[in-house]
């Protein structure tokens, strides 16, 4: 008797979302099977990794990753061009850290200028992230959406406390939107419903169920992402079909394993390799759980994931 591979097929499908303008634009999602199980359905697009840059020097990044950008990170435009031209980045995620009240409190106007400058300097798609300050993001991301009007950017993150103004701005300026909730599938669904009830197409939405680093709750993130994917595919729940976003770098490059000096923890091996390994392993788990768009920091970790994706596809 010959062995027949059991196959599961689903009625639902992950929505395809395109972002960026011109010939460098990208598409994520469109999957009708669980991650990398292409024999069970279609997986038309690979997960995309965006290189993270920020609008001020990355003083809070640990040395391992900060050093990688030491010659370019003083200026977001130079940094963006470096990622595009030297590192072959497919996309850039610009985090507006300095707009945070505790990190410089730069104005929405200043942030808009940075966005315009970066957009003028690169032609790969841009993801624009706020400083994750609920009130400040509500004004910063509205200006950001306007500054990037017509560029089909991804902006975020819209959260329960500020989604209304951000959704309206993304709608008005025709951007894609990241909706973030805090590690709870029911809240993720609820936020997607509230956003679509404002007239925002679910086809333009990306879900961020909140990332975490290996050793720091990654199993919760993994499980929520996997359940979102199953709800979208197996239950054909239209509110759970947007692609999934994973903000990997910011969670990884602050945990002890990526920061602790070798003399403090001699058993843990080389700090430089440890950090890259930590980001690589976290991101690998994310792509296996169904993440379609990742934001990462270390060039070598990004290379590792792109290679893994190519091998798995």
């Amino acid at each position, binding site marked *: 008797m010959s062995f027949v591979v059991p196959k599961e097929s689903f009625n639902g499908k992950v929505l395809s979302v395109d972002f960026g303008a011109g010939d460098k634009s990208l598409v994520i999602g469109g999957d009708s099977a669980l991650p990398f199980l292409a024999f069970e359905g279609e997986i038309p697009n690979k997960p995309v990794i965006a290189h993270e840059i920020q609008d001020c020097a990355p003083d809070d990044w640990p040395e391992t990753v900060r050093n990688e950008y030491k010659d370019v990170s003083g200026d977001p435009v130079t940094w963006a061009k470096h990622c595009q031209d030297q590192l072959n980045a497919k996309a850039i995620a610009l985090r507006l850290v300095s707009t945070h009240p505790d990190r410089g409190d730069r104005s929405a106007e200043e942030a808009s200028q940075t966005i315009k400058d970066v957009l003028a300097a690169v032609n790969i798609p841009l993801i624009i992230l706020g400083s994750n300050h609920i009130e400040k993001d509500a004004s910063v991301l509205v200006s950001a959406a306007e500054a990037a009007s017509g560029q089909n950017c991804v902006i975020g993150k819209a959260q329960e406390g500020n989604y209304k103004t951000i959704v309206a701005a993304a709608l008005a300026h025709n951007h894609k939107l990241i909706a973030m909730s805090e590690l709870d599938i*029911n*809240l993720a669904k*609820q936020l997607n*419903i509230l956003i679509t009830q404002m007239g925002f197409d679910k086809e333009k939405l990306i879900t961020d169920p909140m990332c975490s680093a290996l050793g720091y709750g990654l199993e919760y993130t993994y499980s929520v992402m996997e359940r979102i994917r199953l709800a979208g595919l197996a*239950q054909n729940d239209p*509110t759970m079909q947007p692609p999934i976003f994973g903000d990997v770098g910011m969670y990884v490059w602050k945990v002890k394993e990526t920061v602790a000096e070798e003399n403090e923890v001699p058993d843990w091996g080389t700090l430089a390799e440890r950090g890259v390994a930590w980001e690589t392993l976290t991101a690998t788990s994310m792509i296996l759980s169904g993440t379609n768009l990742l934001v990462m920091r270390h060039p070598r970790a990004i290379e590792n994931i792109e290679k893994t994706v190519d091998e798995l596809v």
Partner: protein
Amino acid sequence: MIIIGEKISVIAKKVREAMNARDPKPIQELADAQWKAGAHFIDVNIGPAEEKGEDLMKWMVESIQQVVHAPLCLDTTNASALEAGLEAHNNEWGRALINSTSNDPERFPILELAAKHNAEIIALTVGKGGLPADAEERCGIAAEIMARAGEYGVPMEDIYLDPLILQVCTTQDQAMHSLKAIQMFQELNDPPMKTVVGLSNISNGVPKEMRSLIDKTYLTLLMYEGLTAAIANPLDKDLMDVMKTTEVFLNKTLYAHSYLDM
């Protein structure tokens, strides 16, 4: 849970008058309202339609599908009217459902139409004689219909078995027999047979203000037994809310605070 909207029926005066006058507007409005309320199929009950049945069913199907992008459940005992409806049916939004065949030899040609037009079909588990006494008798009849459907070339997955719900006010013990039948029907095949009920039969004859309560309470029990579809009133918002809530308990839909809006 599949809801088959029951409101377009020759029994309703407004619908009957619109049918006779060939006035599409009231029928289209009723179809549209049911569709927007969440009906997956729109039932089109033209009764026996002895005069110009073919013409009437064709006109009904075309009028409704002009406004509603959903499959229809064609409900008539007139086989040639049924065939005219199947020919007119637009399958772009799903295949038509025939309501219904049974174990009565007079209804066998309907199976042939289902096979010929690639339609799904409801099979009432009653024969030529009296009503079935219990779940076991319903299963026996179901097995006979399934065997016959096989002969006509109707796939098992295209059949919805209907235990025939009887009114609780006069045949109270039948409520449990029908529930048990829903559970037993599924075991007659692998993959499990699909099931359907005419839900409002349960509350026939009870005071009007109690009907919705009785319908929706019975629906939760039916859903727990694995019911696939119900011919019901999607404009009864309470009923639809109870259905959605039951689907949450059954893990068919994912909870969110706004689940009733979906």
